[in-house]
């Protein structure tokens, strides 16, 4: 029998040849048959219920597996695209007529989608008994009238300006099976039944991977890939490394990496920069000491060098923001009512006898947030406030201020980032009194703000809306609960072998991704 011996020289030669071969073979971002898309999401899924969703990545999954009436249109202009409806038209200020496509089925034997399911799904979110945080999306709803099997009318109580921009094109228009929901309970967790979208949820490995598979029963425009693998990677810098290693086909990048990536994009990739609708701010819980004293909140507003925080965290790629409404929308502001003035901050603290203050700042465990938090920490130290930074994973972070948890009455400072839809009401709604302990973690509670929010929903004159929303942000400034930092920009990178389906602000629409 022939003996094969491995010498050190032959081992090194073989290893060298293997390495060279590995380098020579091009990396396929897509699988061999081009049918698997691998994307990153910034958080893992926790809830797949359109009425109780927690994050943007969940929105995208929900929209893919529960057919919505419409979705946002991919491209550079805001609009919508019909998915489950053949037609949907606004008949007058308070009436919308719709007709469903004829052959959309629910999985698990729950039959065909009908207008009854539309009525159930929309009225469910609006029902105060459900306590959906998204009830505001349908706050103007009077009822859904079923005309026949596939068509019906949505009746509103009053004119509702954001309907076509921030209600219908969101998961608030996703259609659930009435029968399935009545049989199986009133909430969907992470195991959806009666799916109906272009994709179905095929697998979910917590903290590792979510797999969407093309719905074989979907008879209309199919999803672009056989499977979409969604990897939850919280830190964008880690995702960038994953993209460069060939493990991802698409990811958001950190804002701070944009200048470098734009100057020197990885081979075979396309770098995108989009205007963002997001807003980042330092929130101050007004119900927890020492911040139950408005002058101490104001001291923090004056202590934070917003320009310094944004420059340090985003390396010059983002500008300072002045509120919650992004540039270009009615209500966008060019300034805030407080300035960076450490002396004034010290004077306010001294006036209140607040010496040796020690507070905590909760943040998401992400490099940009940590950098921003450390600058805030240094700013606060400069005026005599000792600040401890607490890093949280996304699962913990997004429940910190919830009234159902036990941390909201310990939460003091929080560095937050929300994203919005292209209507100012979608930014202001989260800070109304009804949202205290839901998404309003600063517990800002102002009746005038609420009245203005409701006024904005029915006002269609853009000049008047601009005035209303600016006034609302002025009230937020005045409360001392907010230090507005930035609207960021959105950076994304994708393989040149795919065409990503993105909203104008760079947010993904999984169902709209196609192979190039």
């Amino acid at each position, binding site marked *: 029998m022939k003996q094969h011996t491995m010498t050190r020289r032959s081992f090194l030669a073989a290893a060298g040849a293997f390495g060279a071969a590995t380098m020579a073979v091009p990396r396929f971002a897509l699988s061999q048959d081009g049918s698997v898309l691998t994307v990153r999401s910034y958080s893992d899924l926790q809830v797949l219920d359109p009425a109780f969703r927690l994050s943007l990545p969940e929105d995208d999954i929900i929209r893919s597996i529960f057919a919505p009436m419409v979705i946002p249109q991919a491209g550079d202009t805001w609009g919508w695209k019909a998915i489950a409806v053949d037609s949907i038209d606004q008949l007058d200020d308070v009436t919308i007529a719709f007709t469903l496509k004829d052959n959309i089925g629910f999985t698990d034997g729950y039959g065909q989608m009908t207008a009854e399911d539309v009525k159930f799904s929309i009225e469910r979110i609006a029902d105060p008994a459900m306590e959906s945080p998204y009830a505001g999306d349908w706050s103007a709803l009077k009822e859904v009238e079923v005309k026949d099997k596939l068509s019906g009318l949505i009746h509103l109580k009053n004119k509702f300006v954001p309907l076509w921009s921030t209600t219908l094109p969101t998961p608030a228009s996703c259609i659930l099976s009435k029968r399935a929901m009545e049989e199986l309970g009133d909430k969907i967790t992470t195991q959806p039944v009666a799916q109906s979208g272009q994709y179905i949820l095929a697998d979910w490995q917590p903290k590792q991977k979510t797999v969407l598979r093309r719905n074989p029963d979907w008879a209309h425009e199919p999803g672009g890939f056989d499977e979409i693998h969604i990897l939850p990677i919280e830190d964008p*810098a880690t995702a960038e490394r994953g993209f460069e290693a060939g493990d991802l086909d698409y990811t958001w990048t950190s804002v701070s990496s944009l200048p470098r990536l734009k100057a020197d994009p990885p081979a075979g990739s396309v770098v995108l920069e989009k205007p963002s609708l997001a807003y980042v701010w330092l929130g101050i819980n007004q119900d927890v000491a020492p911040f139950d004293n408005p002058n101490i909140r104001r001291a923090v507003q004056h202590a934070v060098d917003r320009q310094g925080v944004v420059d340090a965290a985003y390396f010059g790629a983002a500008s300072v923001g002045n509120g919650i409404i992004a540039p270009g929308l009615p209500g966008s502001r060019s300034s805030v009512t407080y300035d960076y003035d450490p002396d004034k901050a010290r004077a306010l603290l001294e006036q209140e006898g607040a010496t040796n203050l020690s507070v905590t700042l909760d943040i998401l465990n992400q490099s940009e947030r*940590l950098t921003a938090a450390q*600058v805030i920490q240094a700013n606060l130290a400069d005026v005599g406030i000792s600040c*401890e930074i607490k890093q949280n994973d996304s699962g913990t972070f997004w429940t910190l201020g919830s009234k159902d948890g036990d941390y909201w009455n310990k939460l003091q400072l929080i560095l937050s980032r929300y994203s919005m839809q292209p209507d100012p009401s979608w930014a202001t709604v989260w800070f109304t009194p009804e949202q205290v302990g839901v998404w309003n973690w600063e517990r800002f509670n102002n009746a005038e703000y609420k009245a203005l929010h409701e006024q904005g929903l029915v006002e269609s004159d853009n000049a008047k809306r601009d005035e209303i929303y600016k006034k609302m942000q002025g009230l937020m400034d005045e409360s001392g609960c907010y230090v507005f930092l930035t609207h960021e920009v959105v950076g994304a990178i994708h393989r040149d072998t795919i065409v990503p389906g993105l909203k104008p602000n760079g947010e993904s629409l999984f169902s709209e991704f196609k192979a190039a």
Partner: protein
Amino acid sequence: MFGVVLVLLMIGGAVFADLLVAAEPNRISPRDRFQGPSLAHLMGTDQLGRDLFSRVLHGGRIALSVALISIAASLVIGVVLGLIAGYGPRWLDNLMILLFDAIKSFPTVMLALALVTLFGPSLTAVMVVVVLVNVPGYARIIRTQTLALKSAQFVTAAQSMGAGTARVLRAHVLPNVIGPLLILASMDIPVVIAIEAGMSFLGLGVRPPTPSWGAILNDGFTAIRDTPWIAIAGGLPIILTTLGFTFLGETLRDVFDPRLKARG
């Protein structure tokens, strides 16, 4: 000798950090971010413009204090429990072995994550993890050696001369079993430093802005495409300390067991 020099350098750097470098480790200066090594900043600066050399030296304090305090605590607890298990009654020995094995069966990282989830990220949590992880190993070694010495002639002689259990353990058993443990402990120090660095890398160790080698390494990972110096500054001391304490352990082994040296 090389190990001793490295360890002394590391300890000296940590202890005299304030004298060796003027820059304050937490002083932020964003305009100076991502600078390469220079006379002003020997290891460059990080994403917030903080001096990396200063942060590395001050980070050494954290790493070495976590390592030395938690290893010392593990040694004391491990020795006491090992002596009790080895010298005590059989049922107690069995019970303690069961306890040691139960603790040992937890993967270190899982145990660390569980404790940090329960008590929150802190230096104390890191030290508790290290102690919990190391005590069973040390106790088992002491127990085995104690069992072997329990019926040795000099122990029997001491007992027959009226020496009590405490005296037998302290004066006759302990000096004969402690040597191998010191070698093991010195070799465990880099492991502990790696645990602390790993926890800080994950954001579960010391709180920012306290400098820690793991946190510096994490900053370096994030900014690796902008500058390699932060990752180098975070990684280099971990490598050097690991080498230093490993060589020191081998030196100690040669001192305590000259037969091994002759064989080697």
